[in-house]
């Protein structure tokens, strides 16, 4: 009776409910409403999606135009040009700011290396991954499109499908790890505030369960070179 064993599996699974996620690509009806069934699947906390350029809590841009992100990008999809801050109307605290900032989303592989490289946490990645283009010029995001608005929220472009929660913790968990990768730094806030979100809480991890008894000393690698 080997013929019907396959049917047996099917019938056993019958009552286990529906697994299908009714995501419909943000399709709207005649009135412009999204269907109630049109829900995204829950995403991991560290999802890499569309980038944003963040601002400080006073509205200043975080990007300083250092081009480290463009240098580290394996797909060479970022184009940055820095310029001197205008003295009467500075865009960012410090000397320089990102004058041109473009990301080509038909090249970007969302590896988050730009986020790792950024010294000021200016560029982070949101959890938005539901977007598609009908021509190539839409796919090249300019600085105006990447920069967060005055409320600190990312801009919703017509070819993107934002849902609540997509903009939260934009690569924030990545930043919770110390730059040197030492676990002892975990739980210490070492990053600046962000417009619209404030100073983010550190990741609850090792430091919470097992606090270091001695204060952490920052080792400076003065002798340099390889070991």
């Amino acid at each position, binding site marked *: 009776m080997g013929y019907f064993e396959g049917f047996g599996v099917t019938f056993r699974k019958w009552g286990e409910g529906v*697994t*299908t*996620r*009714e*995501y*419909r*690509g*943000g*399709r709207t009806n005649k009135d412009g409403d999204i269907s109630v069934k049109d829900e*995204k*699947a829950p995403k991991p906390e560290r999802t890499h999606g569309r980038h944003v350029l963040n601002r400080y809590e006073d509205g200043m841009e975080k990007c300083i135009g250092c081009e480290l992100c463009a240098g580290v990008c*394996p*797909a*060479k999809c970022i184009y940055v040009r820095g310029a001197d801050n205008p003295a009467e109307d500075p865009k960012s605290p410090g000397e320089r700011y990102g004058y041109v900032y473009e990301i*080509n*989303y*038909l*090249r*970007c*592989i*969302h590896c988050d290396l730009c986020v790792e490289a950024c010294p000021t946490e200016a560029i982070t990645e949101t959890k938005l*991954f*539901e*977007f*598609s*283009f*009908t*021509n*190539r*010029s*839409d*796919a090249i995001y300019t600085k105006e499109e990447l920069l967060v608005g005055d409320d600190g929220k990312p801009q919703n472009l017509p*070819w993107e*499908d934002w849902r609540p929660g997509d903009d939260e913790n934009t690569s924030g968990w990545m930043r919770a790890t110390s730059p040197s990768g030492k676990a002892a730094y975990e739980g210490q806030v070492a990053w600046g505030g962000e417009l619209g979100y404030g100073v983010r809480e550190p990741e609850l991890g090792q430091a919470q369960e097992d606090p270091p008894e001695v204060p952490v000393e920052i080792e400076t690698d003065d002798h340099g070179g390889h070991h």
Partner: protein
Amino acid sequence: MGLIENIQDDGLGGLEHNVVTGQLEKLVSWSRARSSWPATFGLACCAIEMMATGGSHYDIARLGMEVFRASPRQADVMIVAGRVSQKMAPVLRQVYDQMMEPKWVISMGVCASSGGMFNNYAIVQGVDQIVPVDVYAPGCPPGPQTLLHAINTLHTQIESGELLRRRQGGAGIVVEQLDGQGETQLVRLGQK
């Protein structure tokens, strides 16, 4: 009622629609969008995500697209999933040419759309150099939900488009071809 002199250039524009033909046009484009069968053109890791979209969790059958056709003559949408090597390019073009009109192309993933991180001699830098692309799905690879978003974009285009003409504009980029022989040629990518 006017006459259509050149169907390639004018489409159905020469006709003055009445109630019947106008509704008929809507019905045809509605049915085209609701049963656009994809041709399997999985070339790399994007194909895994394309298969995941066909699976039960994302269930592409909701959109009338569950029949992935191995024969291009039975397919309407070609989902180019993965990087296209220079040797694969003529095959891809042949499969596209074998498809029946009306036909559409989704360029899935950054490798198909622009070469992605493989900016080298072996990979075609954008499949729109070979076939006209309607929708680009970004990501490396795009998840099933990104593909579903691209499919929704395509369906919206099919429903709002014309019956007998392709959407003009192509990929939206113009390349200056500098071959050093005579004058510079402007080539518009992704057009028929």
